[in-house]
């Protein structure tokens, strides 16, 4: 049984020539009866499955639909065709520290961020100490978040997110933050999670890390699947697709 099943998804964006943002403009548009947008298919007929415990990479050039696909997996966007099914709890790392309030303390923010990721208070209490230990911020738990450096901010956010104990992780290049030692810690955590049988979907431009982390990968090009295979073969295919056509 796959944990993630994506079946023939399509996603269309409407790009208006002139964006109508008010009721007034829409009323006028209705009278003039003009259709003033272009359709753009960001994803066309993409299908894949990810098995339990697998680390799956998604690569492609800018504008190939990687982020759109990740947002569909995160259920932020809805597909215009096909279906996305994910079993178990998903944590999406599209952005770290969503809902952080600068005026509140680090401790309060940990509870808020956990609740954004769907965790109850009791569950957060259980891992509370371990969140601050991992982030190495125990001394600062009562400090207001606005006084945190950006590194401390990211560490706290990453640590909180990782402790929500998700079954599936969606990661969008957020690992490229913090200093070297913290980056290593993040990478170690991801290996740990992999060992524990968590499923990871990883979107990145960094082909080296995709090659290291992922077993299989998907190559997108213009919203279509160009290759889906073992990570190394897909990376090769990607290099080939970058060559100028003869």
């Amino acid at each position, binding site marked *: 049984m796959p944990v993630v099943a994506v079946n023939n998804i399509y996603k269309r964006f409407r790009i208006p020539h002139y964006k109508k943002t008010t009721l007034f403009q829409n009323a006028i548009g209705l009278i003039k009866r003009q259709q003033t947008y272009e359709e753009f298919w960001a994803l066309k007929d993409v299908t894949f499955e990810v098995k339990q415990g697998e680390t799956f990479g998604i690569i492609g050039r800018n504008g190939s639909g990687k982020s759109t696909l990740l947002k569909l997996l995160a259920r*932020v*966007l809805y597909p215009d065709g096909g279906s996305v099914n994910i079993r178990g709890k998903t944590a999406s790392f599209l*952005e770290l520290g969503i*809902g952080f*309030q600068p005026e509140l303390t680090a401790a309060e923010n940990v509870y*808020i961020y956990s609740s*954004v990721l*769907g965790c109850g208070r009791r569950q957060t209490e259980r891992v509370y100490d371990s969140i601050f230990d991992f982030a190495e911020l125990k001394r600062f738990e009562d400090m207001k978040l606005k006084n945190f450096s950006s590194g401390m901010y990211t560490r706290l956010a990453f640590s909180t997110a990782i402790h929500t104990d998700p079954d599936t992780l969606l990661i969008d290049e957020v690992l490229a933050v913090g200093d070297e030692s913290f980056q290593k810690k993040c990478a170690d955590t991801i290996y740990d999670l992999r060992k524990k049988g968590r499923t990871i979907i990883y979107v990145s431009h960094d082909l080296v890390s995709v090659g290291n982390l992922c077993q299989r990968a998907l190559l997108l090009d213009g919203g279509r699947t160009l290759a889906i295979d073992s990570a190394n073969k897909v990376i090769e295919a990607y290099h080939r697709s970058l060559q100028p056509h003869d």
Partner: protein
Amino acid sequence: MRELWQYRELTWNLTVVDLKNRYQNTALGFLWSLLSPLMTAMVLFLVFRYLFEQEPNFAAYLLVGLMSWRFFAAGTTSAVYAVVSKPSLVTKVYVPRQILVLSNTVANLISSIIEFIIIIPILFFISGGLPLTILLFPLIFLIYFWFVYGIALFLASLYVNFRDLNQIWEVVSSILFFLSPIFYPMSAIKGAMPIYLLNPITEFIIVYRNLMIYGNLPSLYSLAIICVAAAAAFMVGTIVFNRLQRRFAEEI
């Protein structure tokens, strides 16, 4: 519904953050927010007290009317921005998006309950006692809550696409203020009574006054109107919201 329960923690946190932002930044935060309706009530009382002297206990009448109106007015005008003001919760992570509106309406409910609790001693003082029916007040508040929440869902989702809705709603809301018996007695409305009574806010205000001043149980007619209005607002709001929320992340 089950999903909302799973995210109850988030709903509550957003409510608390909302209330904190509203009141924490000024030391007398809450008192300030109460000062403005009390001043309004005072001014309306001084201006209209002779004009509407046929209304017994006009001060209590005014105070209850204004406070019940305020939950509707604050609940709907602040809800307009409920979704748009939290873009990262819409575009970067999955949460059931009704929560953004729900937490806003709950925050307004809490403010309103505190306001009512504060005016109860004032009412006691100016009416020389309180009727027993005041105990039913939470029940009516519950019905009123679903009414306001439904309209809030409707407004918050439409505002994502129509960014002039805030101005339109301001006008609509000030028209509703005059169409509801807040500062004038019901007897001032003569010709158009049946149509006038169709305004659900009027019925809510009548029920509040009956419970808090006159000690009358609400009539079945009033109860029917407010229940139907609350159910209709909630259903329409939910349907529109669910329809539009699919494209929130693209439009915001």
